Structure formats: C-alpha cells, structure tokens
C-alpha cells in the first residue's frame, strides 16, 4: 500500500475561556453549607475547577462554561438553590447560518482534532435549507476496506486540480503532446481567504503553514506572500484581483497554481499566464451569480478548466432576487458540464457556506470536485462570527495570535473534518472521494423524500 495520508494533530487549548452553552444560577444566600454538597459530587468536576478560577482570574476554566447540563446538582441540592440557564453569551455567537452550535463544535475540533461525539440521539431540527436538506447514503453490506475505515487499508481523499484532457494528443511523428499541469491534494479542501477578519500578518502565515502541513494549498493575496516561509511557496495560490501580474512575475514562476478574479479579460489573462509558465494551473474565481452556469461554460470553452465558484458566506447565490442555495446551483452547473460532455475535463472548486465537515461531502455530491474554506479557519482561531460588531476590536483578539499556534488549530480542524469525511465515505462503501463527485444517487434530497413519503398523504 502507498503511504497512508496522515494529518499531524496536536491538541491545542483555547487561548481564552470557552463560551459554553450552559450556566448555573446559584442562589447562595440560603445555602446551609451541608457536607454532602452537590458541587463536590459533580461527575465532571466542574465545581472543583471553580477554586483556581477564584484565586487566579487568568485561569482558563470557569464552571459556567464547562457544565454539561446533566442537572445532577440542580436536582440534588438540599435547598434547591441552583437553576440551569442558557449562557446568554453563547446565544450571541454567530448568526442564523453560523449558529452557536456550529461555532462551539468548530472550536472543539480545532482544540482536539477529534470527531465530535455525543450520546442520546440527534438533537437538531429535522432538516433545514441548503445542505441540511440532504442525507447521505450508506450500505448495509459493502465495506470499503478490509480492516476498518481507519485501518491500514485507507480511504483515499485525494483529488486532482487542473485540466484533465479527455484523450491524449500526439504530434505528427507520434510523439506525445505536452501534458497540461495537474495538481493532486490529499484532502478535498483548499484554505481560502476569510470573508472578513482583523488585519493580521499572522493569519495568512498560519493559513499557509497549515496548508503546507496538510499537503493542500492556500489561497492568498499577493501582498500576503511575504508571510510564507520559503519552503511553503509551493502551497500558495496567489489570487489576482487586478492587473498586477507584472509585479509578481517571480512569484508566478514559483507557484503551482494561480487564481484570477473573474472579469471580462479572464480568458486573455489566463492565456498569458499559461504562456509565461506552462506548468501553472490557472483557476478563475467566479462569483456564484445567476449567470454563473453560462459563465462556467464560456470559461471552459475558452480554455480555463479550473473554476472556483464562490457563494456568499451563507452558501447562497450572489445578486439574485431569490437566491438559490449553492447545492442547487452546483447541481445545475455540474449537470450542464455533464451534458456538454466535458465534466471530467474540468475541476470545480466550491466555497461559501461550507461550515461543517458534512458540507464538504455534500458539496462534492452536488458536483464540486473539492471545496475551499475560509471562515471555519477563523472560527478555529476563536472567531465568534461577530462580523466586526465590536467596534473594530476582535473579541477573540485574533490579531495577536502567533503563527504556529494558529496553524495547528487549523490543522486540527481539518484533521477532524478529514476523519469525518472518511466516516461518510466508509458508510457508503466508497473508498475514493473522487468517486463521490456528482453521485447524487448516493444521497437523499428532502424534496424527493417528502414527495415519496407524504405526497399521497390523506389523498
């Protein structure tokens, strides 16, 4: 077997106290100070950790925030002095899409690199818009590997980025033509620019270092390249949003892939870049607008075969009167390319609204080859998705973060996502993420299930 892909996970504690979901309200004045105090019997030792907090304000743990809400103390207190409450600070995290539970789960994964596990069944809504209206398939009898999904025989999560010609081309004397450049990354996730964030040199540096550790690529602005260690240059994907190519010729000779913000001259820019460096993979960064499908087809016809489709931060179309969710748009674009007979020649990268590990698998099922994530990387660093609501000051103080710490948090998050992607693939009996692309037959869409199950209800 080839060497197994391994994500170098190292547990990294949070820099600040974790904002937990629960808190206890303690009505202390009637306390009889009985010797069998429920606080001493806490199975999780939450109250014991109150003492260091009281004596050392910088101590990272506060009982409010590690409570698991088992209610043992609340129901057991001799005088009934305790009540459970939802931590109001927890409810202020994020927004309707980047919900508090998503942020808390991302923090946990960035800290431990482990898959979130809990007991007593699923606890969320039945379904939701976008990716939450898709369920993935499983197989009762097919196993993808012979010694378990985390065994020696591994499930491959590598994907290719680049033009993939449908057939070989030979010269007049039978000599093989020049092959187009093709990159392979071991996880179907690129580390993208975050949609917002405080100015910081450390964040791009951390993203680049994390991409290098993961073996994937990091999208950066040209002015952020200075943050990269020299040995990490091959992990860079500079994004050009204007005509500044000439200023970065040296960089363009050293990197393996480049992104161009889509505009009227994308095709000519792409041709020029390929001419100057034939080994460069050129990707067009296209906003997921209502005309995106036609634009993708036009780019493909013009020779740009790697396209990064960017939805908004909530995974919706940009600029549409009634924006569709990215899952629907991706299915349309994928279907169009299949219809045109060029799907296998093109690489589609999806970004926007990819908030959880399951979204990676679902975006790929809907037709993407891989995804790019930005905001989850910021959440891994402690971001609360406040969108700058705190008068310009970041409540997670991200601007002061140091590169190795931040990079490891990002690596841990991606490690946890990688493990979860393997779980989804393993359940389906698939051992190759490339085979998941566009496999809508291995997913269940709510609109179909509702029609089948309830379409004839009461009729």
């Amino acid at each position: 077997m080839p060497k197994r892909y391994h994500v170098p996970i190292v547990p990294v504690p949070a820099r600040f106290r974790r904002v937990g979901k629960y808190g206890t309200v303690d009505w202390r004045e009637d306390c009889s100070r009985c010797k069998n105090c429920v606080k001493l019997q806490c199975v999780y030792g939450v109250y014991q950790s109150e003492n260091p907090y009281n004596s050392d304000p910088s101590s990272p743990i506060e009982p409010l925030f590690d409570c698991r809400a088992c209610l043992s103390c609340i129901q057991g207190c001799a005088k009934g002095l305790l009540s459970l409450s939802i931590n109001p600070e927890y409810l202020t995290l994020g927004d309707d899409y980047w919900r508090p539970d998503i942020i808390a789960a991302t923090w946990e994964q960035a800290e431990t690199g482990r898959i979130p596990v809990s007991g007593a069944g699923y606890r969320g809504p039945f379904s939701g818009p976008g990716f939450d209206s898709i369920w993935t398939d499983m197989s009762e009898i097919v196993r993808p590997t012979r010694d378990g999904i985390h065994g020696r025989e591994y499930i491959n999560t590598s994907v290719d980025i680049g033009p993939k010609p449908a057939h070989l081309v030979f010269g007049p004397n039978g000599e093989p033509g020049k092959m187009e450049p093709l990159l392979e990354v071991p996880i179907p996730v690129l580390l993208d620019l975050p949609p917002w964030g405080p100015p910081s040199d450390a964040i791009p540096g951390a993203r680049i270092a994390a991409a290098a550790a993961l073996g994937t690529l990091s999208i950066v602005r040209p002015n952020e390249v200075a943050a990269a260690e020299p040995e990490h240059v091959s992990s860079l994907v500079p994004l050009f949003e204007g005509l500044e190519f000439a200023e970065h010729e040296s960089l363009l000779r050293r990197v393996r892939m480049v992104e161009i913000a889509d505009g009227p001259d994308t095709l000519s820019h792409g041709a020029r870049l390929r001419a100057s460096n034939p080994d460069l993979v050129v990707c067009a960064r296209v906003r997921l607008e209502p005309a995106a499908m036609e634009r993708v087809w036009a780019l493909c016809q013009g020779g740009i075969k790697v396209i990064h489709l960017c939805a908004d931060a909530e995974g919706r179309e940009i600029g549409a009167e009634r924006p569709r969710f990215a899952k629907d748009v991706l299915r349309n674009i994928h279907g169009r390319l299949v219809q045109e007979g060029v799907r296998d020649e093109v690489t589609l990268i999806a970004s926007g609204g990819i908030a959880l590990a399951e979204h990676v698998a679902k975006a790929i099922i809907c037709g993407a080859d891989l995804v790019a994530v930005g905001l989850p990387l910021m959440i891994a660093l402690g971001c609360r998705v406040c969108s700058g609501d705190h008068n310009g000051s970041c409540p997670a103080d991200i601007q002061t973060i140091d590169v190795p710490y931040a990079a490891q948090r990002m690596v841990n998050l991606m490690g946890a996502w990688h493990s979860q992607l393997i779980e989804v693939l393993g359940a389906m009996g698939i051992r190759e993420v490339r085979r998941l692309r566009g496999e809508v037959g291995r997913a269940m869409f709510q609109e179909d299930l509702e029609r089948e199950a309830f379409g004839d209800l009461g009729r």
Partner: protein
Amino acid sequence: MISAAESTNIRTNNGRLPRAPQRPVEREVRPAADRYRNPIGRYKVCRSADCRSCGLCVELCPYGVHQKPRGYSLTLRPRDHLCIGPGCAQTDHYCIDRCPNHALSLGRNPTAEAIGDPRWTSDLILSTWHQAETGHAPAGGLEFQHGASGGGFDKLRFRFPEQPPVALGAGEVDTGLELNRRDDGRPRVHIDLPIYGGGMSFGSVSIHVMLARARAATAWNTFSCSGEGGYPERLEPYDDHMITQVATGLFGVREETIQRVRIVEFKYAQGAKPGLGGHLLGDKNTPEVARMRQAVVGNALFSPFPFHSVYSVEDHKKHLDWIKMTNPKALVSVKVSTPTDVDMVAVGSYFAGAHIIHLDGSYGGTGAAPDIAKKNIAMPIEYAVPKVHKFLVAEGIRDGVVLIASGGIRTAHDVLKAIALGADGAVIGTSELVALGCIRCGGCESGRGCARGIATTDPELMLQVDIDWGTQRLINLYAAWREQFVDVLRRFGMRSITELRGRTDCLYHLDYAKEGEAACG
C-alpha cells in the same frame, strides 16, 4: 398462538437448555416519583417569608403542589413540578391569588426552559417524566405528543372523524401484535403492546437499567433487547421477554444465549451510526463488561462494519439459517438502517427468512455516536417506513413479515404515526432512558459515563437507578402510552392497532394540509 409458558416447555423438552425459572412481574401502575430531591417542572412556585403557614394553599391545590404534613407547623417547600401554571388562574383554587398574605408567586422555571432541543423539547422530557411517575399523560398543558423539530412526525397530525364510526369502550380495543406472520411452524409470539425495547448493550448501560427494562417488558408481555454486549446471567429469569442480539462484533454471542430467548436479532446497522459499527470506549470496558464480552479489560471495543461474512442476500440467508438451526423455536429479526435502497434491503430480508424487519432511522440511538453520522447518514424513519411498506405491498409480501420502526420514536403518538405510515409497531430506546431520568445531556461517552447513572458501568454511579423504581417507571410509561394508543384508536373506531397499519388517510401533514384541515387534529 403459543404462550410464553408453553414455549418454555417446548424448549425445555428439547433437552438442550436448562433454563432458569421465569419470574413474573406485576403489571400495575403505582406512583414512582422522581428520584431527585428537586423534581423539575415547567413552573416555579416561590413561597416568601410572608407565609404564615395558614394551610389554605394546601386545602386549595388539587395537584398536591402544597404540603403541610400532620404535625408540621410550617408548610413545606412547594412541589412546583406538579403545578399547571397560569392556566390555574381561571379556577377558584389559584393559590397565588387566594393566599391571604400574598406570600406565593409563580414564574416559569428557568431550568425547564434551558433543557431540551428541537427533537426532544423541554415539554417532551418533562411529560415523559410525568408519565413515568404517574402512568398517565400530563393534564397541565405540557406537550406530550410531538416535538418541535419542524419536520417528520412533528409535522404529522391525525385526521380524526368528527364522531367515531363505532363507539368502542376502552376494554374493546386491542393494542397487541403478533410477531410471526410466517406459516413456518415457529411460535406465533404475541406482545400486548405494539412496542418493545431496543438493543442497549451491557457496558453501554448498567445492569440495573437492563434489569428494569427486562422486568417492565415482562410485566407488559413484550420484549427488551440485550444489545450486542453479551447476555448477563441476571437477565435469565426474564428470558421469555428478552431479545438477544447478534451484531458484527459477536461479543458474548454463544450458542446457549441464542437458545435461551424467543427472538434473536441480527444487527446489520444502527441508525445512530449507520455504516460505522459500534464503539465501546475503553473506560466503560470494566472487568465485568470484559468478562461478558470475552474481551480484555480497558480496551476500546469496536464492533466492525459490516458483517464480514455477508455480501449478498444468499449470505444473509445463511446467517438466518444458522440462528434458526441453533434455536428451532426462535423468531429472527433483522435490524437495518435506512439507506436509499432500504426497500430492497427489506425485501431481501424477507426472502432470507426474517420474521421481523426492523428499520432503524437516523435520528435515534441511545449510545455515543459521531454527530455527523446521526445528523446526516441515512434517511429519517418517517421516510423509510412508507417507502418499505409500499414496496412490500407491491411485492405481495407485506402480510408475511412484521415491519418495526425505530430511530426517533419519542412518544406514543410517534408510534401511532409510524404505524399509520405503514409499520406494524415500533422499538423505543431513548424514551425508556428518559423515563429513568435521562436528561439527554449527551455525556454518555465521557469518563465514568452517565452522570445520571444510566449509561454507565461505574459501580457508584449505577446505584442511582434502583431496579424496582426503574421497573415501575417503565411500567408506568408503557401504561400511559397504552392509554393514548387506545384513545386514538377509539376516535377512529378501530378495534385493533393492526387496523391502523398503512392508513395514511388518517394523517395529514401541516405543510401540505388542505384548507381547514388543521382544525381537525
């Protein structure tokens, strides 16, 4: 039909199995109060220092919120979990208004508002506790029929006729179910309720919980399931009401455990972690658990996925034949998850010889499982049941097999809705644990295990659940659910729960209801 006693004789006469005497359990509803000092209700009633202990509130409250035992000079702290809340203000016994010293106040209990989630709302948890305590559905406005998940069962309602077509007394309604529809000479095992307990292994829950479940199943002439962690000897007096499981890890599976029971369940997959197998954390693998599972103490135990000897329906039949040969009187249940082709899986299981096809949907499960699996892998049971039911009907084999639904069945009404969608009955798990005091904090997997003493083998924590108390709580829950089964069937004029199967015309969906329909439910 062969009774439990007769089938015991048959197997004893085979001379193959020395069996422990079976121990009956009385089916009687008795109060079984919350085992904690401070029960939780939706409201909090506070008594201030202005109270003169006149005792008027004790006289007024018909719900027992206020107490002043004989010989006491002071009134006790209000048992506010019994309070029905502001609705009481419409009556003449509203203690808040009637207190001569204005010493009482009423407010919502912040704890009650903080617990629960869309699937298991605070009301569902509190109402399940109420049913386990009293044996009846709550009367104080707690929602006990559905959750607030915004889909599936929570969007389905019954379309009751204005008047029942037939007036039936409560005693005329049969809630029983036969579990063998095949004419294969095996016992036609009958259960008195259309529900039985799901598999929870020794190790994932304590022996006290297993015994309480087995004893309640015995009282109600239904079944509980050992899960895949072996078959503790202490369950032997309840063999006739136990299902033993053969899962992919084959932990504790022995010939004598298969011969001991009336139903053997093959677990191909489970809804909480479809396609992923099982995982008992090393902390929970205590010496006793390891002995039962024939494993090494402290090692994490993986139940691999899938069965490594099954790649086809033919292999599957070979499995079932193995069990049928080992125990010629046992029924065989096949537990599967809900993939896209769940209908084909069900048909394959039928032709392999299964008596029961048990569909485990993705939203349930009691043990620890990856969150990504619970939420995303395999379809919810609400979709799987009609899909399988319709396919079995179309294949002409529906009446040859019993279809059981599980995975997110929380209430008596969920059971009835699953049956109306096409199941014969349901398997429950989390509801039983909630009745025993589970708060669904989800900490089953951590350290010493469940802080509430349920999903743990910690010798200290497990003592929190007394076996007799647990048995009574479950007997009460089943009694409360049966009352609701009977109530709904009477409103439809149905004499048997079997008449409800597949009657989707008895349901409507809130999102697709015709105008004016919402008023009917």
